[in-house]
């Protein structure tokens, strides 16, 4: 049977067919649905980890204990996981282990567009690159075989288009793979210098064997058509190349992309007149092919910035220009993502934005949207967990040079568990008067509501221990802690004023669930249900637009009546706008 699946769903099927026993991940677009789907399978232990380093370490432990394991993350997550990855490459596996890196060319939902293929070369491990959903399934099965045969973790490199595009997948049979026996082996798994020196030599030998495999395997396959143009390509770019050139060119399709099949490439190059290397992002293959003395055309024509598509390739290599419908799309107002109506972050950012002489170090999550118009409450966003640590470093400099500036580091609950905890520990240890704010919305919001150590449920929705954030903050060494309701502006204002009086670390925790979250019984008891909406009293509204400064999408200004209107379809009655109105023209109705 054939099913239309996303690449992420296909990986899940592959994990089942390959008898993978353990899977872990930290959510991150475009990788998140891999674990969400694996969790539906009772044969696989599947877990959210607090961060990517923990995720890969648990998968490494599972492999060493003898169970096939998988670990998934977005590309920047691999930076967090790089420490164990680089050394696990030395020890190798017991049962097979695959690390899925979901890259995001075009930055659909990321802070950079790094090309993680370099991690395979850097760590000296095997790499597979599926180009559609069928390959995403099949290659997971193959990755396990390669991992065990060549004693290497496998980097499984996907991209947004492979993860999130649907194509037809034909299922295979499940392979019943017995657990491998665990045998204590210090010469393999105890990476002290004396052991690692030997393992490095062994690793170089494994790479030679992998290159021989790369030249033989049908994962790297030549399709002969016309020999005037030869194309070497991998991943989504291969599909685009086929779209553009069809049968007018010959292809060497690379599925096993590290080590590259250099002998196969050389033979292919000799038989074609012009050789193009078509790859998304960096010249990963091209550099190696050119270093091997093989002439080819790549990044001098094809951009390394942004996502590729057939149009870009056709224009770059064939000079193809299309006639398009003439339309000035600049005239169409943008539609950026915004904090939802009723978002608990809105009230906090509204008050924070009023403070003068502050630098707001942000983090990765929905609250990054607090930096947009009209709230404009953000100075920086670099990576997960950086809010508090960057705020600390900046505060130290402001203090050293006697500048009248305070820093406020803003992160979410899941970000706090990810790496924000370490940053806050540093603030407590190295004493700065940085203000740290943990926007606890009781869930991992931006990636679509994944459970986390503070939410009370596991990936499968089973009840588990709820980490007490205030207790944890206290244990990290913070003495000054305030917990506030972010929908109560007076409470937020007082907490910020309170924090600004201290010459030592303070933490403000805003506690209110994400407006889109399905409330648990515990949530219902603590926060109640959303009842009623806000309504503008047109008699009282003077059209001052103060309420519009909250940036709530339920509010709009009617130019004819010069009054504000509230969309009852969106309003949940959070009452933030009501508190902002100077004329008390907004009331809550239907309570």
């Amino acid at each position, binding site marked *: 049977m054939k099913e*239309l699946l996303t690449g992420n769903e296909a990986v899940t099927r592959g994990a089942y067919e390959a008898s993978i026993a353990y899977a872990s991940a930290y959510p991150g677009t475009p990788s998140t649905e891999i674990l969400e789907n694996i969790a539906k399978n009772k044969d696989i232990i599947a877990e959210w980890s607090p961060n990517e380093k923990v995720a890969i370490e648990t998968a490494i432990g599972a492999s060493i204990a003898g169970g096939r394991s998988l670990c998934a993350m977005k590309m920047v997550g691999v930076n967090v996981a790089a420490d164990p990855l680089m050394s696990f490459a030395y020890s190798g596996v017991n049962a097979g282990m695959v690390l899925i890196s979901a890259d995001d060319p075009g930055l659909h939902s990321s802070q950079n567009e790094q090309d993680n293929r370099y991690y395979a070369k850097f760590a000296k491990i095997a790499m597979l690159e599926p180009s559609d959903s069928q390959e995403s399934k099949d290659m997971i099965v193959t990755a396990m075989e390669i991992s065990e045969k060549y004693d290497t973790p496998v980097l499984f490199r996907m991209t947004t288009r492979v993860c999130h*595009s649907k*194509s037809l997948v034909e299922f295979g049979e499940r392979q019943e793979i017995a657990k491998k026996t665990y045998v204590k082996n210090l010469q393999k798994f105890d990476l002290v210098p004396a052991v690692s020196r030997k393992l490095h030599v062994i690793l170089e030998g494994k790479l030679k064997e992998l290159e021989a495999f790369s030249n033989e395997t049908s994962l790297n396959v030549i399709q002969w058509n016309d020999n005037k143009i030869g194309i070497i390509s991998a991943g989504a770019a291969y*599909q685009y190349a086929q779209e553009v050139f069809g049968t007018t060119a010959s292809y060497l399709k690379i599925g096993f992309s590290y080590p590259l099949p250099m002998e196969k490439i050389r033979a292919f190059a000799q038989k074609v007149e012009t050789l193009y290397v078509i790859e998304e992002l960096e010249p990963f293959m091209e550099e190696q092919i050119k270093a091997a003395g093989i002439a080819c055309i790549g990044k001098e024509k094809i951009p390394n910035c942004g996502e590729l598509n057939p149009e870009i390739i056709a224009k770059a290599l064939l000079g193809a220009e*299309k006639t398009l419908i003439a339309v000035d799309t600049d005239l169409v*107002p943008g539609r*950026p993502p915004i904090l939802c109506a009723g978002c608990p972050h809105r009230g906090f950012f509204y008050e924070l934005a009023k403070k003068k002489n502050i630098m707001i170090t942000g983090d990765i999550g929905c609250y990054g949207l607090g930096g947009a*118009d*009209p709230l404009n409450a953000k100075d920086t966003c670099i990576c997960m967990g950086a809010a508090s640590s960057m705020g600390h470093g900046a505060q130290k400099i402001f203090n050293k040079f006697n500048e009248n500036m305070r820093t406020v580091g803003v992160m979410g609950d899941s970000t706090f568990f990810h790496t924000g905890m370490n940053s806050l520990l540093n603030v407590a240890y190295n004493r700065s008067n940085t203000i740290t704010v943990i926007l606890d919305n009781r869930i991992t919001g931006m990636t679509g509501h994944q459970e986390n150590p503070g939410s009370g449920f596991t990936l499968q929705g089973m009840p588990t221990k709820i980490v007490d954030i205030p207790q944890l903050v206290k244990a990290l060494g913070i003495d000054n802690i305030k917990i506030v309701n972010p929908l109560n502006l007076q409470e937020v204002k007082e907490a910020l004023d309170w924090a600004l009086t201290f010459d030592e670390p303070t933490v403000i925790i805003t506690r209110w669930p994400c407006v889109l979250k399905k409330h648990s019984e515990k949530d219902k008891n603590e926060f109640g249900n959303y009842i009623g909406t806000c309504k503008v009293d047109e008699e009282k509204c003077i059209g001052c637009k103060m309420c519009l400064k909250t940036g709530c*999408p339920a509010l709009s200004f009617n130019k004819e009546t010069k009054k504000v209107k509230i969309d009852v379809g969106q309003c949940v009655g959070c009452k933030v706008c009501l508190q902002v109105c100077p004329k008390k023209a907004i009331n809550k109705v239907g309570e």
Partner: protein
Amino acid sequence: MSEVKNILLVGVGGQGTILASKILSTGLVEAGYDVKMSEVHGMAQRGGSVTTQVRYGEKVFSPIIDKGQADILVAFETMEALRWLDYLKPDGNVIINDYQIPSAPILIGKQDYPEGVLETIKSKVGTTVIKASEIAKDLGNVKAMNVVLFGAMVKAMKLTNISWEEIIADNVKTKFIELNVKAFKAGITADIK
């Protein structure tokens, strides 16, 4: 069946483009086509602009539709049609929901909702304007406007020989089947330009 056809659905996060594309792709697979579909997830839930691209034919390579390649553009929101218009083939068709959702720059008064969008588009390509949200509201639930638009698209793309009503029934909750089938019928009987 050799030529690849391209359907581009555009709208705003939360408008139900995903359900429409799920029904569409299920039907196309049942009809024996090779199908590829691309959606970008991530921040769409937060009110951003969303697209779903569906390509079908005997053999499909790229999952994405380039500019100037769509046979039909279905806009769930009016000004989104203008934003994506140059993805349409010059002789392609547009189906537009006559329904405006102001975006953030409009809500805070920095920009105005563009005027005369429908007239601009009508002057360039074959355009069908449907009051899908109103039709759905009259049927009992404004959210079913996605299936009204879907019905009109099925007619415009001459895909009426697929058993859509059964597929809709398989893809929505039991209590919403009747509503969605009615919405589909309302769409498929629309007057397509």
